[in-house]
């Protein structure tokens, strides 16, 4: 187990999803009629619509926020002091 992989697979990965969600508010902003890059826009639309935001109805906690484990709790509390909006979206595993 590598700490770097742990960091990337939890915090960096989930925040990348956040930025994907916040930066492109509507999947239809990607122009599928563009003559050069329309095909890329097609798969981009599907990805934005179906694979960026949280999967609903998970029965377990997958966030740093709300975890009772001392490591995750410790990291969340300090991260929230820097930026609550980002800290609240830090996931503990990959499920999207």
């Amino acid at each position: 187990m590598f700490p770097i992989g742990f960091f990337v697979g939890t915090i960096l990965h989930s925040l990348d999803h956040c930025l994907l969600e916040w930066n492109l508010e509507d999947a239809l902003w990607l122009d599928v009629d563009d003559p050069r890059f329309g095909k890329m826009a097609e798969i981009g639309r599907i990805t934005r619509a179906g694979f960026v935001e949280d999967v609903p109805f998970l029965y377990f906690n997958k966030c740093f926020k709300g975890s009772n484990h001392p490591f995750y709790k410790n990291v969340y509390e300090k991260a929230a002091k820097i930026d609550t909006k980002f800290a609240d979206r830090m996931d503990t595993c990959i499920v999207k």
Partner: protein
Amino acid sequence: MDIDLDTKRFVKAKLDNTDLTASQACILLWFNNIATNHVKLHSMANWGINNHTSLDDINPFLRRNSVVTAMYNYFGYSIFFQFLREWEEQGLLSKGWSNKQNPYIKCFNQGLKDGIGQHGNIIDLIPYSRFVKFVVKVRMIFMDAFAKHKDQFPGIDGEVCEIWTRIEVIIHMFTNYVSDRLFCRYYPPLA
């Protein structure tokens, strides 16, 4: 792609000396991230899990997270392309995505093969980017906390210190792409 750091606005973009519109730049940035960059994060995550059954006693939360991550990554890579044909038939995709050459998976593989480049100047973006600032600070918090709770994370590699220093490279790769949401905001034309 040129971004004005002060106004956080798109200035211009080129591909092979051809000017791109903001809309085209948006498509390319988006596709590059989802098809070749983001997959690297998934791949790296496989090196940050431990799903050994002994963790059931030591750290069951980590074990569950590890199992979830391993399963998602496995199915994400091995099953995803099977949806493409269905989406073509539904009209969500044009023909070609599901052909034998498997173009989308090829993009995944190319991204993984390319590895992660170093962008040594990423720290310069801290004053301009709320996101870079957050990630750089939280990285230190994360590593400090990890060292403090290392008894909860068995199976750590002996070369861990060297690896930690390489975290910079990952951050550079990641933040080089989208360092602030305002940088790449695409404003569609008014109807």
